[in-house]
Each structure stands twice: as C-alpha cells, then as structure tokens.
C-alpha cells in the first residue's frame, strides 16, 4: 500500500487508478468501467478546485490534500464503538459501512424485501446488476465537478436503496458510515444511490462517525431519483472527529408531485464541504432544505446548495442556520435558479448565523437567478450575536451566563429540527446537538 508525499496527490491517484484497474478482472470492459475511465480522464482535465474557483472561493481544499492518505480498504469495527452509536434504540433498518465498505456483520434489515431493496454496490457489481448499470452516474453528473469525477472513477462499494412502486417503508433506514482511522489515514470514496419509484415513501438517516487518531478524507457522492408522487425524508448527521474531513456531493432529481425533505447537520470536522443540488424535473414538486452547522475550533464547514427550478408550479423552502465559535469558519452559498418557463414558482431561502468569538468567520452568499416573471422569491441572510436582552431576561431569573447562552443557542438551532416528522429521530438529534452546543 503506497502513501502520498505532500503535494503529489495527483501522482498518487494516477498510480492508484492503474493499480485499481489491474485488479478488476472480468469487469474491465463492463459499462460501469467505461464510465469510471471517462470520469478519471475528466478528473485529470479538471484537477482539484482551488480558491480561484468561484464555488471554492472561501474553502481551501489544499490543506486537506496536503496530507498523506491511504486508499481505504475494508476495515474492522469494534463492537463497543458500534453499541454506543447514536439512535441505537430506534427500531430501524440498519446499514453499516466501515471505511466505505458494506458490513454484513452489523447490517440488519427488518422490513420486508417486497417494500425495500437495500443492496451493497460491490455485490451488485459482481452480479452485473441491471439496476446498477441503469442508474449509476445518471443523476450526479461529473463533467463539472472534479471530486464527483474522482468518486465515480474509483467506484468500488456503496449503497443502493430501491423502493418499488407504491411501497411505504415502515421503518426508517439508518445508514452508519463509520471511518476507522486507527491504523492509517484513510481516503474513502463511498457512493449512495437512492431510487424511489412512483408513490413510494421512505425515510433515510445517514450518520457519519469516526474513531482513531489519524486524519481521514471522505469524498462521497449521493444520487437520488424521486419518482412521481413519491416522498423522501433524507437526513444527514455528520458527526465525525474534529480532525476528519469530508466532501459530500448530493444531487436529487424530483419528478412530478414529489416531496423531498432534507436536513444536513454538521457537528464538527476539520473541513466539511456539502454540495446539495436539487433538479426539479417536473411540475408541482415540494422541496424543503434544512441545515445546521456547528463550527468550533480549527473547523471549516461549507454548505453550497442549489435549487434549480426548471418547471412551473414548484415550491422550495430553505433554512440553514449556524453557530460559529472559536476560530471556526462557516461558508454558506445558497443558489436558487428559476428558469424561463418556471412560472408560479415559490422559492424561499433563509440563512442565519451566530458568531461567538472574534476569531470566527462567516462568509455567506445567498444568490437568486431569476428568468421568469410570475414568481415569488425571497432570500434573507443575517449574521449577529446572542440577543443581549434575551440573555438579560434569563439572567434576571437566576440562570448563569453560560447556561443562559447555551439555552439561547439551543433554541436558535432547534428551529431547523422542527420539520422532522419522526419524533424518535428528532429527540435523538436534539440531544446530540444540545451536548455539542454546550462545548462550543
């Protein structure tokens, strides 16, 4: 296993790609491998983004690319660590990935296979599955995004969830992405594909955790297709160690009358970059985007969202909030695009930030691009601090400064979590966030 020296990440990747291709055996000429090769060529053309790219203006990827990594291999997971996981007491379909590889040992599916198909991509590849070939790289284009291209090029394992027509999945699906960084610094590239057919409905909760003292770098790509009149609740909790880094690219394509609720909660991380894109492919869709970022010491959390209204009569509502303490940096870029024919679009967006220290930095850019006239669009962004009067009110009732501040921040953050339907998931998240806020 080779490791990398400081700045030749590219050489490292080229060598790894060669090695990777030599191990594929019978898959070399498969359609999926053609996509891999094209994606790698595209990655080489694009190169890693720098701060000169408008989309990466405030986020310097260089600092995590300069580390030494190992391409992740299937790894171990101590039982103790697994047992202490969040949401352990919720009855759910549990899917576990360790360093991007599906763990049959820990995963348990409780719902009937007629209502949901949960597959490891590695297994589907072996079986030469039609499902995988038909949907892989169909919704998350890599042509303009170097990291998505890189993920596509190194496709090995990941998760494919398929909910057939009219199926209402009873229990939530909780996907644990666990990073083991105890023996080396892993470079992990998982892929998730979520497919909801017509009238299907499911709730997916993704939880990223990590252990070990080494750095880690996860570059994950999620592609989602939501069929007509289907409903998806898709929540992400990024709860890795403070020295873990993650670049997450998610693209969701929505068909007619479908509803998607997303929530992205980032509690910490050295560098976390979330790109969440919605492509509204047909009329009358509903989309909620919610996000919460808690940025502490030596941490940079970046959220880039795009809602692309291509068709009329769609509704989108976005709320992202952040608490930035210590020398943390938060970046928010929310873009709403209303194309020419997307009349009667309602698109709302709000971003709120609280700064806790003079070292903290917030860079926000709410962006609207509108080409249709009969629309209602608005956006708002605020950056401020804890309300002095509210603080005084609490203190006058005998609550200490620190407790009062924590209370107010918890209340500030709680608004984002309001939209979660599932009470058990909501309670679990609130508990976790409250603990984290107290440490900021």
């Amino acid at each position: 296993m080779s490791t990398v020296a400081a700045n030749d990440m590219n050489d490292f990747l080229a060598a790894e790609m060669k090695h990777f291709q030599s191990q594929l055996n019978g898959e070399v000429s498969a359609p999926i491998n053609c996509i891999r090769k094209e994606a790698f060529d595209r990655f080489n053309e694009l190169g890693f983004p720098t701060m000169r790219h408008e989309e990466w203006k405030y986020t310097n990827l260089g600092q995590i690319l300069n580390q030494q990594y190992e391409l992740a291999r299937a790894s171990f997971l101590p039982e103790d660590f697994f047992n202490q996981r969040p949401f352990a007491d919720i009855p759910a379909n549990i899917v576990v990935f360790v360093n991007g590889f599906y763990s049959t040992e820990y995963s348990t599916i409780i719902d009937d296979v007629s209502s949901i198909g949960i597959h490891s991509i590695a297994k589907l590849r072996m079986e030469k599955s039609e499902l995988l070939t038909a949907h892989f790289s169909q919704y998350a284009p890599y042509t303009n995004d170097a990291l998505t291209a890189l993920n596509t090029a190194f496709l090995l394992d990941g998760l494919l969830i398929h909910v057939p027509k009219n199926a209402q999945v009873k229990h939530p699906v909780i996907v644990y992405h666990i990073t083991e960084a105890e023996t080396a610094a892993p470079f992990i590239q998982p892929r998730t594909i979520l497919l909801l057919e017509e009238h299907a409905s499911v709730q997916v909760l993704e939880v990223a955790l990590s252990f070990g003292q080494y750095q880690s770098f996860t570059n994950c790509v999620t592609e989602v297709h939501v069929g007509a009149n289907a409903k998806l609740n898709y929540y992400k909790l990024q709860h890795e160690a403070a020295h873990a880094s993650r670049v997450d690219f998610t693209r969701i394509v929505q068909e007619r009358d479908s509803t998607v609720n997303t929530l992205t909660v980032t509690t910490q991380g050295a560098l976390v970059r979330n790109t969440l894109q919605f492509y509204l492919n047909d009329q009358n869709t509903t989309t909620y985007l919610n996000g919460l970022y808690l940025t502490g010491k030596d941490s940079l959390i970046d959220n880039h969202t795009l809602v692309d209204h291509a068709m009329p009569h769609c509704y989108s509502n976005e709320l992202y909030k952040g608490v930035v303490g210590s020398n943390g940096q938060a970046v928010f870029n929310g873009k709403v695009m209303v194309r020419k024919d997307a009349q009667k679009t309602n698109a709302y967006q709000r971003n709120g930030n609280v700064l806790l220290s003079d070292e903290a930095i917030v860079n926000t850019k709410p962006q609207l691009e509108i080409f249709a006239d009969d629309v209602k669009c608005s956006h708002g962004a605020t950056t401020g601090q804890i309300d002095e009067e509210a603080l005084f009110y609490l203190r006058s009732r005998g609550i200490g400064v620190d407790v009062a501040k924590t209370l107010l921040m918890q209340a500030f953050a709680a608004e984002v979590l309001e939209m979660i339907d599932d009470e058990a998931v909501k309670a679990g998240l609130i508990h976790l966030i409250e603990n984290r806020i107290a440490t900021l």
Partner: protein
Amino acid sequence: MADNLGILDEVTNSEYKYGFVTNIEMDTAPKGLNEDIVRFISAKKKEPEFMLEWRLKAFRYWLKMEEPNWQNVSYPKINYQDIIFYAAPKERKKYNSLDEIDPELRKTFEKLGISLDEQKRLSGVAVDAVFDSVSIATTFKEKLHEAGVIFCSMSEAIETHPELVKKYLGSVVPYTDNYFAALNAAVFSDGSFVYIPKGVRCPMELSTYFRINAENTGQFERTLIVADDSSYVSYLEGCTAPMRDENQLHAAVVELITMDHAEIKYSTVQNWYPGDKNGKGGIYNFVTKRGACLGNHSKISWTQVETGSAVTWKYPSCILKGDYSIGEFYSVAVTNNYQQADTGSKMIHLGKNTRSKIVSKGVSAGFSHNSYRGLVKVNKKAVNARNFTQCDSLLLGDKCGAHTFPYIEVANQSAQVEHEATTSKIGEDQIFYCNQRGIATEDAVGLIVNGYCREVLNQLPMEFAVEAQKLLAVSLEGSVG
C-alpha cells in the same frame, strides 16, 4: 493579449515614421493606444511631470492586465486600438430654434418637464441673453470662492492645486485596482475636482452642469472630491435628459474622501443612449466609484438612478475606515429592451462602530437583465459594525431576468449584518385597481414602479427627484401591453 501587443508594436513603429511627437499642435490623437498617446494627452494638457509618470505607470500596468469576464453582462469585445483616446471639444451643431430639433427628442423633453430654456441649452440651440448659462455659472463661482470651496475641472486643478491632486488622486482607486481604472488613469481627459475646506458647508448643490467647460469631458472622466474636517457637500452627476454621445465606451473613475465629521452626498442620474429596441448600439458604462471615510464620524452616501446605457457595470463602494463612519447606497436600476445592468455596492467595514445601508431596487422589462452584486465585509477589528441590505427586483414580462449575488463576509462577533431580497412582479390586482379608477395600464405601471422606488428617489435632491420620477415612466414606455 499577445495579439494586441503585436498590433501595438506595429502602431508604435508606424507613428514614429511620421514624426508623431512633433505633431503636438493637432487636436485629435490618432486612433489606438500606446505610450505616445499617453504622452500626447499629458503634453496636450500641459501636465506636470508627476502626472505623466503616473499615467505611464498606469498604462504599463494596464498592458499586463486582462479584461475581466466574471460579470453577468455580455458585450462584443472592445477593440482598444479602434478608439480615439483624445479629442479636443468639438463645436456642436447650432440650431436657430427648437423647431429644428428632432421631434422625438422634443417629445421626451416635454415628458420630463424640462424648461424651454434648458431644452435649448441641452440640444445646442443658441441661448438668448436672459438665460446665459455662462453668467449663471460665474455667479455661482463667486459664491463658492467666498466660501473657500475649490470647484474646477481636473486639468485646472492639476495646474492650480498640484499638491492636493498629487496627495489624493488615485488614493482611493489606485490604477492597480481594475482593468478599467488602469485604463482611465492612463488616458483620462478631464473631470471634476472639488475640495471643501475645514468646517465649510458647501452653500449649494454642486453639479457638473454649472461648471464652465463641462461639455465634452469625454469618455474617460475622472472625478475627485475631498471633504476636509466637518465639511459637507452634495454633488450631482449626470442629467435626466437623454444624452446622445458618440463614444461607446465610458470608463470613468470617481473618488471621494471624507475626513473627520465630514459628509459627501453623491447623486447620479444616468440616462445615456441605451441602444435601439433591438439592442443595437448604446453606451457601455463601466465606472469605478469608490469613497473612503477616512475620518471618524464621516459619512458617504451614494444615490443612483440608472436608466440608460446598453451595459451598466458599476459598484459604488465605501471604505469605512474611520470609527463611527457611515456608508450608504441607494440605487434604482431600470433596464428595458436589451439593456444589461450589473450593479450594486461594496461596504468594507474597517473602523469601530461603523454602519452601512444598501437599498437597491431593480426593475427589468423587455429582454433585459438586471443583476445586483454586492459585498459587505466586516473586518476582524470592526467592532459593533452594522449593515442592513435590501435588494428588491421587479420583473415586467417573462423574457427578462433579475439576479442577485450578495457576498457577506463577517469576521467579528459583534457585527450585525442583515440581508434581504425579494423578487416579484406587478400584481394584476394592483393594475386592475388603477384601471378601475381610470388610469391607463401604462400609467399605472409608472405609478407602481415609482412607489416601489420611492425609498431611493427620496434621497435625491428635490428638483432632481421630480425629474427622475418622470424618467422612470419614460424608460419603461412600451414595456407593457
């Protein structure tokens, strides 16, 4: 760039052949741009050595730069070798009476409510003795002189107050700032210079209109306004009357400087030729405007009404360096037919307790595109900085576009920054309400747009505001129905 350099060499060489340098007497520089043209302009204006040095430095820097392409407007590439960079003021065609003027132009004048005398002046009709703009200007000059205010053309200022020019010119917008600022520094022909001494409240609204020699200041204008401690000045630029101009590229630079407790209010009404209905022709208005609040408790306020030009691309900005300093930006940008506007403001908070406010109202009609692009930056040391930004867009028709690109960068926990934006169209019920009361649809649109822009128009000096209101209605003519 390599190509340009090739052409440049060619041009330079060929001009030497004809002994270009000795040809100082001529009034118009040959087409194109090279060091000799810069020297020619400087010599023509009898500038001191330091100005020539500065121009040349700017020119050399410009050669190394590339034309920016990040903006949300598109226009055919400008050929800088096809422009005449210096031309002495031309005599305008004189008319004997208003009847000889283009009736279209007269109609517009009437709609704007411009007085007959003024109409004559603007269209170049010989003015009678009663309304002699020169004599009025002279009276004003005396009054200003009494107060100690220096108000003259830039060339005059370079001659009479070189120390002030040397100290402040380029201090807010250095030639290294951007492509067009460098170009302007190298070849600017003239502009206005204002200096308000300590404790003086300028007795009147200053305007380019009243400055003798203001005509034909050319396409590369340079304005510098310095307000010393506790002084106040309100400056008007532009005119509501439609301006026909031969020059296609306008790359002006405006620099404002305020010292302790000083205030500058800068208002612009821009109504240059926007091109015809099909988007042919029209002016490119690429202007760099920036003010520096150097002193404590100082204030700079920009107000602009932009209705003309094929392409408008400018961001009047404030650098809030002094503690307790205030920056304001009020803007109405109206685009119709194929016009494009990419405008907004930058507020850079450096000092303590600084405040800024941005109110931007965009109206797009026809096939036009209107963008707001702004930056609010709160520096680490800017304790208690406060900003409020509101940018609204109004869309008339489904073929136009409205875009917002606000950048907000905050690095201080005590800062309070708010941004809000909305995009909407004129409600059918609003139009119906007006129709019901006998107001034609076109007039109703004018009425509603005026109400929507009121917050900005209120900032304009009284008589300007009235004209600006009418101007909005005229600009949107033909956009409904």
